[in-house]
């Protein structure tokens, strides 16, 4: 089943580590943009190549989607549901920043069908929020979480970032413990990635701030996996943990190499074997859509073999890994034969495991997943 991603490129303030398409905007711009996104859905639905897609999820991400009015979110969801084919009850996620959501806001979007809210908590210490340049306090995180619970959001996720400049492993442990004490259904723990050209990358390069050492970050990661397991969270992907059955279906679709349609500026679509990418420029996006044109540019087409390899590196991000038989049937390649020694060497060295016909990263392998996956890509 396919996933639908809707990009809201607005936020109250640009975070120093963020390299997504987003930024503050005026109410008029937001309104025009959201109108354009709904229009894009209508245009997309008419395209024959998309007519066969059945959707199982909607993910409204950003930016900070909750910087737009609740009725705008509702109108996006409604348009999507009315325009495309959905199977069963779709998973509908909205990303939210703590300072932007009220209990009323959340109640309204839940009524419209939103059943998963992902709160950009990032940390449970004000020091961390300051280091990450966040626009909210720890109290606001807790308030937002309580509001989501009060609004009876069925699946609440907390997004956390660790390894920010100045963070000690102890500080991280405490934050994670606080997060778990709230009993969210889902927790994403992202090791901070310094993206080129972000403000934080500049500060680190200039020596103004210092990242934790590799040893410390390693310890933090170990703690994440051990602590969350003890607390009853299952790890299902390198950075994602949840209570049983509370996985994010939308994201799993990415790692299973499923089709997805991206709406909005900078959004990427994958309609096998082709990938498209919408223009990142807001004004250009609006102009194209209202001109009745597609905002997407062709990005790439993957041949069967390249798709297979991409499927391998994506699937191995998930703890359940790859079911070899299923992969052979789906892709026509026998993975073990295809990679030969490369895979067996890594099994021998303890980075991969093969049991019951399933190939997956070991704990050690997850730490150096790029080294492993770069041998398979």
């Amino acid at each position: 089943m396919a996933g639908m991603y809707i990009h809201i490129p607005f936020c109250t303030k640009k975070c120093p580590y963020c390299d997504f398409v987003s930024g503050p905007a005026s109410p008029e711009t937001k309104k025009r943009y959201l109108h354009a996104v709904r229009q894009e859905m209508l245009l997309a639905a008419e395209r024959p190549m998309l007519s066969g897609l059945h959707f199982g999820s909607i993910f409204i991400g950003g930016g900070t989607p909750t910087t737009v009015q609740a009725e705008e979110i509702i109108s996006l969801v409604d348009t999507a549901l009315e325009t495309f084919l959905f199977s069963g009850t779709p998973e509908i996620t909205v990303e939210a920043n703590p300072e932007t959501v009220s209990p009323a806001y959340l109640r309204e979007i839940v009524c419209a069908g939103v059943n998963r809210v992902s709160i950009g908590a990032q940390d449970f210490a004000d020091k961390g929020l300051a280091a990450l340049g966040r626009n909210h306090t720890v109290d606001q995180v807790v308030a937002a979480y309580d509001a989501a619970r009060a609004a009876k959001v069925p699946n609440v996720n907390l997004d956390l970032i660790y390894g920010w400049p100045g963070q000690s492993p102890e500080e991280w442990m405490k934050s994670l413990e606080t997060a778990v004490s709230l009993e969210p259904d889902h927790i994403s723990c992202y090791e901070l990635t310094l993206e080129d050209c972000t403000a934080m990358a500049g500060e680190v390069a200039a020596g103004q701030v210092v990242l934790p050492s590799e040893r410390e970050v390693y310890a933090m990661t170990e703690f994440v996996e051990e602590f969350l397991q003890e607390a009853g969270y299952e790890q299902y992907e390198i950075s994602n943990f949840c209570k049983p059955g509370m996985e994010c279906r939308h994201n799993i679709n990415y790692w299973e190499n499923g089709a997805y349609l991206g709406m909005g500026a900078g959004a990427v679509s994958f309609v096998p074997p082709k990938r498209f990418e919408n223009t990142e420029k807001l004004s250009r996006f609006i102009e194209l859509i209202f001109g009745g044109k597609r905002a997407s540019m062709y990005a790439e087409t993957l041949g069967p073999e390249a798709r297979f390899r991409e499927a391998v590196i994506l699937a191995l991000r998930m703890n359940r890994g790859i079911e070899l038989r299923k992969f052979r049937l789906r892709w026509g390649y026998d993975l073990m034969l295809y990679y030969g020694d490369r895979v067996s060497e890594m099994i021998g060295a303890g980075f991969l495991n093969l049991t019951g016909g399933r190939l997956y990263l070991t704990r050690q392998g997850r730490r150096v997943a790029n080294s492993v996956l770069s041998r398979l890509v």
Partner: protein
Amino acid sequence: MTADPSRIRNISIVAHIDHGKSTLADRILQITGTVSDREMKEQFLDQMELERERGITIKAQTVRLSYTAEDGRNYILNLIDTPGHVDFSYEVSRSLAACEGALLVVDATQGVEAQTLANVYMALDNDLEIIPVLNKIDLPSADPERVAREIEDIIGLDASDALLVSAKEGTGTRAVLEAIVRKIPPPAGNADKPLKALIFDSWFDPYQGTVVLIKVVDGILKPGMKIRMMSIGQTHEVGRVGIFSPYPLDVEGLSAGEVGFFTASIKSVRDTQIGDTITDDRRPAQTPLPGFKPIKAMVFCGLYPVDPAQYDPLKEAVEKLWLNDPAFSYEPESSAALGFGFRCGFLGLLHMEIVQERLEREYELSLISTAPAVSYEIALKNGEVVQVHNPAQMPEPDKIDTIAEPYIKMEIYVPKEYIGPIMKLCDERRGRQVDMRYLSEGRVLLEYQLPFNEIVLDFYDRLKSASRGYASIDYDFLEYRPARLVKLDILINKQPVDALSVIVHRDKAYYRGRDLVGRLRKVIPRQMFEVVIQAAIGSKIIAKERIPPLRKDVTAKCYGGDITRKRKLLEKQKEGKKRMKQVGQVEIPQEAFLSILKI
């Protein structure tokens, strides 16, 4: 049809590297209208792209100019450009042998350098008339008087009417041409005698076959003639006969005193060795021209393709190059670490670098080279003597009686304030000072005997930095001398990496081992596994370093919008690995092999 020898002037330009020889040649081409301004690229005679980039002349090149002098007569000037580096001194000497005179170009801001001297002595050996030219007089730091004095004091040439020139700006270049006509004698020689022509350069042209540059000393060379190479006795039929002006132009013949080229269907440039004499097969000369000596490689290194699949293209490239460059030698070799490649011999370090670059650039190969090594003479206990020019081929220590290494005699010219650091450097390199002379008030000639293997690594760079670039050197092979040498092996995760083995003096082995291992630790990236690097002499470990395994290397986020980008990052990582050599499970970057090039 034949040119009047009294109207011919065969000249060369001798100079130290960077003193402006090629620029002066360019100006002369322009003034004589040989090359139009539009055609004029900087340093026109440096044909190869590589030469232009490095600003040096690698292959000697020759060109015929037509010049109407102030006496109203028309002269033919054959300008023979020569390479300007110690590695190519033999080519220089043969080019000079084709001339009757030479312009000695000295940078008026610098003064006389080792190379100037070495080349001037060669010119004097060839009885050439020498015209001193002080170049770069346009620069504020030019001091023509001091430099003229140096020429008189050091070389012993009369520099009272040295020409003041700025080749860059064209100042004084016409005076240079007049001086050539007036001062340099026309070629001697007799067109009626049996043919005798000196080969001073040759190269392979895919359309023409081998192109041979010659100076006809006696007799006449014509198309269709059957000629004989006097040193090797091979005979060939002459194809085209012509001159460069500067583009090739066919002529009916070249007679005594003339310089030009001929083509013949000779497969290998090696069969037209520089310095050899050609003669008429039907009416041969009795004795060859003097000065022929076969060229011998002095420095060796292993060249391997980074990608083993490039072995065949490398083989082809090396073979082609061999045909083109008699000074270059090769033989196949294999390395446990690097796979299949070639052990190649070179005249010197610059020659080695140039060949490597040509292989990489002209043949689009990506190469790993092992540390340059010299050839050792090893006397075995069974009485046999073997030449070893690859450390990995060193016989077992218990079979060796003695090892002898080549020594060179080196002359170093240096301003006196740098004597200290230079002497220290030579001491470190096991050098023995034989002489030290003040050439002028501020400049000194140091003469050393040095083991050649101490020079082949980074001596030249070190010398330059110890003297802020002012020292210049010239060297000659001296003899083989026994020495206490050992083979130092590098082991990576217990596996010896043959391509990293070096032969060092026993007294330096510990230092060298520690240094090498430390260097390798810095250039080998952390891997998924621990990497242990050891230096060993025989079975004795003398140094050890470990590279801890990579603990964290993971992309936290990978969702729909950035799958392509993240995949490309992994692909980049994979490409990076491809450029490394896999030894066991350890990936070793090219820099590791280069790191042993420094002491």
